[in-house]
């Protein structure tokens, strides 16, 4: 069993989706996240253990490597896809058991902005670290964020923007959320966003990379 967990974590770290996937070349013809997750569950592992001992460990390694510039967008995307393949089996189990996920993250790209690759990477990374993620997509208005945040008390809201022009909406939405309920925690991110900007608009968290938001959430939900 331990060997399978470690294999699963490798699949996530290196982005091996399933046996047929050609990527990465060095893992050709080996079982991927799809097969190994299934083997673990068949052997009686709990969904929670698969998440904790396999996925989270792999995802954390990717996050750190991305931060250190050792890997780049394609590897992270492949890791995210590998995790997706595992989550197909885990999601129904979490839904059944009410889930032992650590907390909820609501994410969307702000109104006026259609960029979603960065947002998707963050959402995968957060999900892979054991959180429930509600992805609202792109071009999302303040009202939508507020409505979903109300439906999920305690959730953290993540606002993504890739353009300097849509950062203005990040500010407007942050302020609208805080005006509605000052206790809702807001995290902001995206290529042009900085810590200064985040402080100025009254957001609770900024990170230049996905790993930072995971660490922030770990801090919030550990309390």
């Amino acid at each position: 069993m331990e060997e399978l967990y470690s294999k699963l974590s490798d699949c996530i770290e290196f982005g091996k989706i399933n046996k047929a996937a050609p990527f990465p070349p060095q893992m050709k013809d080996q079982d991927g996240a799809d097969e190994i997750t299934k083997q673990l569950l068949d052997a009686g592992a709990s969904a929670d253990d698969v998440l904790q001992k396999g996925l989270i460990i792999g995802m954390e390694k990717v996050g750190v490597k991305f931060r250190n510039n050792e890997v780049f967008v394609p590897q992270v995307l492949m890791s995210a896809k590998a995790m997706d393949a595992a989550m197909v089996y885990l999601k129904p189990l979490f839904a059944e058991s009410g889930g032992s996920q650590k907390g909820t993250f609501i994410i969307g790209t702000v109104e006026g902005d259609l960029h979603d690759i960065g947002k998707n990477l963050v959402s995968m990374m957060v999900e892979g670290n054991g959180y429930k993620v509600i992805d609202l997509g792109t071009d999302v208005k303040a009202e939508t964020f507020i409505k979903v945040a109300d439906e999920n008390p305690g959730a953290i809201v993540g606002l993504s923007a890739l353009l300097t022009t849509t950062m203005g909406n990040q500010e407007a939405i942050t302020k609208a959320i805080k005006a509605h309920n000052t206790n809702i925690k807001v995290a902001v991110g995206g290529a042009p966003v900085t810590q200064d900007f985040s402080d100025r608009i009254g957001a609770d968290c900024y990170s230049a990379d996905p790993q930072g938001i995971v660490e922030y959430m770990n801090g919030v939900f550990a309390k």
Partner: protein
Amino acid sequence: MPKITLHSTAGIETHEYNSANSLLQTIQKIGGEVFAPCGGNGTCGKCRVKVKHYGTVTSCLYYPTTDIEVILPDTKESKILTDQYKHTLKLPLNPCCLAANVHSPMGLGIDIGTTSMVFYWVDLKTGGIVNTTSVTNPQGRFGADVISRIGHCANEGGLEELQKVLIDAINKELIKLEENEGIINSDIVKVTISANTTILHLLLGIDPTPLALYPFTPAFTDYKIVAAKKLGIDINEQGGIHLLPSISAYVGADIVSGISSIAPRNEIKNYLFIDIGTNGEMAVVTPNEIFCCATAAGPAFEGANIKCGMGAFDGAISEYSDNGYKTVGNDKPIGICGSGLIDIIATLVNNGTISMDGVLTEDFVLADKNHSGNGENIILTPRDVREVQLAKSAIMSGIKILIDKAGLTYNDIDALYLAGGFGNYLNPDNAMRIGLLPMELADRIIPVGNTSGAGAVLHLLSEDFNDVLKSTVEKSQNIELSEHPDFEMEYAMNMYFS
């Protein structure tokens, strides 16, 4: 007598010259070789040479009077000029009506790029380009790309500021021309401007903010004539400023102008047109339809976001191989321009210094501070490699998806026209090596230079060019890349240097 210093493949030599002669005659007298098929009549534009600290001139129409330094095109550049001539549309001289009322009518074509502005001074009597000059787009200090400039418009007076610096830059060139060539403002009867959609908005002082926000609606895309007086551009007071038509927020007049300026040979049915600039606009042109898109390539190849990046100005490393670097103007290096960047990355990928997935473990020193022109190390950083990965993948993914959307394959593409000054200088083999251009089209790549500018010049020369522009716009449809189901995966996977 004034002196001329001539740089050619044979070396550098200095001679005295007679200022009564044209530059072409002077060069020919001292044995320099310049291709001049029209015999110095000012009509073919192929005898262009570079005058240091001034710009590119059509040597048969240029009469220097002071000490100058001239750089002759090398064989590669001559071939490009010849290719450009072969693939550019030719129209009989038919300038605007005002030209008939003026003794020696002149037109000014301006290609306003995000990074630089190129000015074409055209004699509307002969149809010859008298000279070409270029300056950095002064809006650069408000942001390297159009998005950050649009962002600047949110500041009080930001829009006015962006408009003013453009108009000032144009008027400054007009003054320079008057001083250097003795051309008076009232002789300049027409200005044609080709630029991307954002810059056209800024030039007219129209708020471009909607261009950056979904659903990206321009305030205007059609052909416009504005009185020069109204914009404060100092030409003949009855003269007009003509803005060429655009297609959408991100496929601007520069692309419409560029595609319209190309006259492919008969055997070329379907072709790709690519302008590797900040917005990485491209089009697949078929006999009845044009599919176009813009890719978020970013300004990496124009020098922004790159630690030692710069435009292709004097002192920029423009070529690189295992044998070392070459710079623009043979000066000591002070930075790296786009073509150099591609060469450096291709070389370092080939020798394993950069891994297939783009890891460079430490800064790579191209020239140390004792050998550079600015007392600083000229380096390539690991982050620079990442910027290039993002840029080249955006272009390559755009090419693949656009060809797919047009229902074609690489086999159906008869030519790849590479537009933009950058296209002239990049080494196609290295561009393919790093995955910026598809290997499959290796034998079909044709650099055609600044087609946006060529279209502006055609528009000055002939009113008939309006019909060509109109037809280009009518045949075009805009493709939204991010809506394509394969986009995300293509974009990620094309980042490798496989």
